[in-house]
């Protein structure tokens, strides 16, 4: 049964065009026939069909409403105007046919009925369109200035953004709180559509409150409904924003709470209020934390990747949406200086190169220096001593270099320090590791490892 109901419901978008067609045809015929009055019978018939089609559209529309789970509020106006369209179509038919002698219908002017029908069919159609496409569908393509001229609210969904260097200078209310309210509350609480008689678009509205009185109690967020309603369970009747609307994030709720707790001050700066940066962490612009270069490269040829895989190399894109490649010799311990030349077809794409535990020697630097996007280079557990490592200078993206368990010599350390772009260098188990401890020089982290966990008396105590 439910299936049939749903099916009928989904026919609604098709069926609705029938009454529109019939009624408009009827109205046009009336206009055409306004003088001769020869076609009254035919016009009446058209409105009868208009009525029948409208009834079918109403039934299918009701099924759609039941099946798709619309809130009654959303569809109410459309539903009732649809029903009235059907009724008026019937009235028109009865009026034109003069079925009943001497009845009140005769007193109704046909012109009034015609205009009512024109109005009803337009408004029903428009409301229906709003339900399926959204209420701003029609006006959306209009230029901004025409929109504001017509009085259509221009919604600006801009997340509050703070900058690292001047966040303390930003105003708590103006730069953070009000933008949050604008994004999440003002679409229902504005001067045009003040649900619950509450307006949250500015200082006055917020301080005035709504039909239940003030929404703010200075310094007492737990008794301010502007805050408490945000933290009610989502299913609670009084929870705001309503369940089907975009909710405030945890961070935003915290900001509202903090603002109220600070005397809901409207003109102090964040710095003046002495608030912690942590509170606003979510509002700083997201930095690109990816290790790998931002630039994009062309995809490496599939055939060359397959050929390399068949040689036993592990080779994969760093992610499905990226053409950069990760190449590893985990499965090919015999990989040597000559073999690295076979990577020529993927030289641009390779960002992660693991040559650990292979037969490579210092000669490898010559070839490695030709990988323009190389970011992570692992040379651990090899016979590398560091000779020729200055060739890596040209690799502008090189960030991590792993030389663990190699014969890396002290004398090349100064050369290495000239490879400025490096962030981390692992040098554990090299001849240097014995005499050095971890240090950071000019932003480069030298990790010598050799960590110890000294013996403690408690290690051997058994309780």
């Amino acid at each position, binding site marked *: 049964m439910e299936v049939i109901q749903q099916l009928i419901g989904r026919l609604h978008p098709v069926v609705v065009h029938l009454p529109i067609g019939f009624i408009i045809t009827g109205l046009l015929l009336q206009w055409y026939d306004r003088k001769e009055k020869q076609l009254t019978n035919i016009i009446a018939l058209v409105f009868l069909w208009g009525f029948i089609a409208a009834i079918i559209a109403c039934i299918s529309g009701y099924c759609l409403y039941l099946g798709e789970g619309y809130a009654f509020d959303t569809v109410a106006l459309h539903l009732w105007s649809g029903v009235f369209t059907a009724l008026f179509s019937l009235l028109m038919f009865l009026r034109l046919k003069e079925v009943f002698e001497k009845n009140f219908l005769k007193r109704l002017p046909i012109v009034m009925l015609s205009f009512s029908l024109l109005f009803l069919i337009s408004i029903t159609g428009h409301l229906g369109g709003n339900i399926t496409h959204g209420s701003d569908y029609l006006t959306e393509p209009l230029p901004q200035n025409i929109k504001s001229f017509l009085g259509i609210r221009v919604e600006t969904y801009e997340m509050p953004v703070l900058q690292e260097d001047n966040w303390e200078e930003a105003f708590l209310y103006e730069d953070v709180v009000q933008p949050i309210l604008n994004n999440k509350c003002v679409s229902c609480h504005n001067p045009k559509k003040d649900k619950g008689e509450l307006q949250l678009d500015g200082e006055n509205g917020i301080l005035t409150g709504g039909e239940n009185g003030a929404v703010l109690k200075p310094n007492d967020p737990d008794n301010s409904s502007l805050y408490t309603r945000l933290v009610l369970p989502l299913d609670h009747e009084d929870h705001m924003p309503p369940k089907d609307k975009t909710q405030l994030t945890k961070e935003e709720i915290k900001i509202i709470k903090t603002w109220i707790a600070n005397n809901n001050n409207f003109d102090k700066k964040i710095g003046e209020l002495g608030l912690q940066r942590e509170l606003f962490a979510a509002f700083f612009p997201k930095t690109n*934390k*990816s290790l*790998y270069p931002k630039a994009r490269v062309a995809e490496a040829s599939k055939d060359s990747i397959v050929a390399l*895989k068949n040689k036993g190399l*592990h080779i*994969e*894109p*760093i*992610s*499905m*949406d*990226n053409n950069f490649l990760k190449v*590893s010799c*985990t*499965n090919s311990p015999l990989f040597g200086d000559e073999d690295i030349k076979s990577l020529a077809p993927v030289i641009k794409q390779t960002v992660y190169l693991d040559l650990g535990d292979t037969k490579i020697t210092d000669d490898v630097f010559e070839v490695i220096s030709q990988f323009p996007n190389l970011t992570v280079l*692992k040379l*651990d557990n090899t016979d590398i001593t560091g000779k020729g490592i200055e060739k890596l200078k040209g690799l502008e993206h090189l960030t*991590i270099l*792993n030389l*663990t368990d190699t014969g890396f010599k002290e004398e090349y350390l100064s050369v290495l320090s000239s490879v400025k772009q490096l962030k*981390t260098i*692992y040098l*554990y188990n090299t001849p240097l590791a014995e005499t050095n401890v971890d240090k950071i020089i000019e932003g480069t982290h030298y*990790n*010598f*490892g*050799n*960590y*110890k*966990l000294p013996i*403690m008396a*408690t*290690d051997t*105590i*058994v*309780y």
Partner: protein
Amino acid sequence: MNNIDRLIKEKIERELQANTRRHFIKNCVTGMGGLALGSFFMSCNSFGSKNGNGKIALTERDVNPLASLAPPFPAKVKSVIYLHMAGAPSQLEMFDYKPALQKLDGQLTPQSMLEGKKFAFIRGTPKLLGPQAEFKQEGESGNWVSNFLPHFSKVVDEVAFLKAVNTDQFNHGPAQLFMQTGSPRLGRPSIGSWVTYGLGSENQNLPGFVVLTSGGKTPDAGKSVWGSGFLPSVYQGVQCRSKGDPVLYIEDPKGISRDLKKNTIDAINKINKEEFNKYSDPEILARINQYEMAYRMQTAVPEIMNINNEPEHIKEMYGVQPGKESFANNCLLARKLVEDGVRFVQLYDWGWDSHGTDHGTAVDLGLRNKCTEIDRPMSALLLDLKQRGLLDETLVVWGGEFGRTPMQENREGQEMAYKGRDHHGDAFTMWMAGGGIKKGASHGVTDEIGYSALEGKVSVHDVHATILHLLGFNHEQFTFDFQGRPFRLTDVEGHVINEILA
């Protein structure tokens, strides 16, 4: 016509009557369906794609189910080491410092705290039990660590704490299943299985998902905690042992030499290849591959499972006991495995069920010994990964299946000789360290006695979502179709815990 003939005739007529036109049409339809269905199967693909030489195009995964795949999004880590303390360690003696509980020690628990709560063993009104350890703020982060973990307090700045993890299970089996598979009931794949299914394995000589156990027993929930559930069984965890054969039956039988073994496998594979040329069933290729991998594993696994070749200072740092089954050995092995490209290493250490029924399960005695057992190895693991540049690309997760009550256990309403705590899942501590984790962070706050979460409550699903996030997955999009719907590790829940991400 005799009676027999008449009977047979009648039977045939009955059959014909029963087999109406309707049946005929119905049968026809089934036949058509069968034809259509056939085309869905790759092996008898009559309409699908073929490559140039008339063979069916195979993906790498058809041939080798463990072939590695790129993650959907750039990953922060490529491997995971998950340290599961089976039995549920007491957060109140290790990380969650509650001085107020000390003051309330010995007092009866208020009724309001007990209403509507279910406990495994506590009956009637238990007494509150103060922390049995001393706490200090450690490292630059100033996070609290107890004196049960003196080594760990030196590396505390490397980890991010989750102080208010919540589970709805309070018995070991279901809670362990929940923690490892996302459901307290059997049948769902474990985290490691999901991860190896999604990413495969880099090292083609080793399993992608290795399980190591210590503490004398395997988890209460059995091997299902590393099972593959509805995923193909090739993605289940492979249990390796640090004592005896690393994998059961890995040695060749007596009298079978390596060469003979190789010849045998070659012969079997040759027959299988012929079979494949005839039927083009990718399952045959997968089988050939499995034979070869098993052969390679026979040398690779014993080699990697041998910790004797590690230098002395490393063995000392972990506190290993070669030849024995120990958490320290397993930690060192975990590092070796991750170093060699194993995707997911799962450690279980049994013996954390501190009920206070005897010396071994007392929170001030047995628990302290358990802490000593893991303190050095897990701290060494973090440091060793760090000095080798592996901590950047590995995620280390530590936790139990739930936490323990701030009340002293009173089994059957009786006062007990040793101090113990009952199972409690409302708020317990876990930590994570490694790539993408905010070092020194602490997320979540429990109430004054550590009974329930005040802030930053996270669920088991949230932990899973975070692990998958760091490996480059959106946990809401990583699905497997089973029983008519797509399944996720986090099913219909889970939010990435951004507070502990760098």
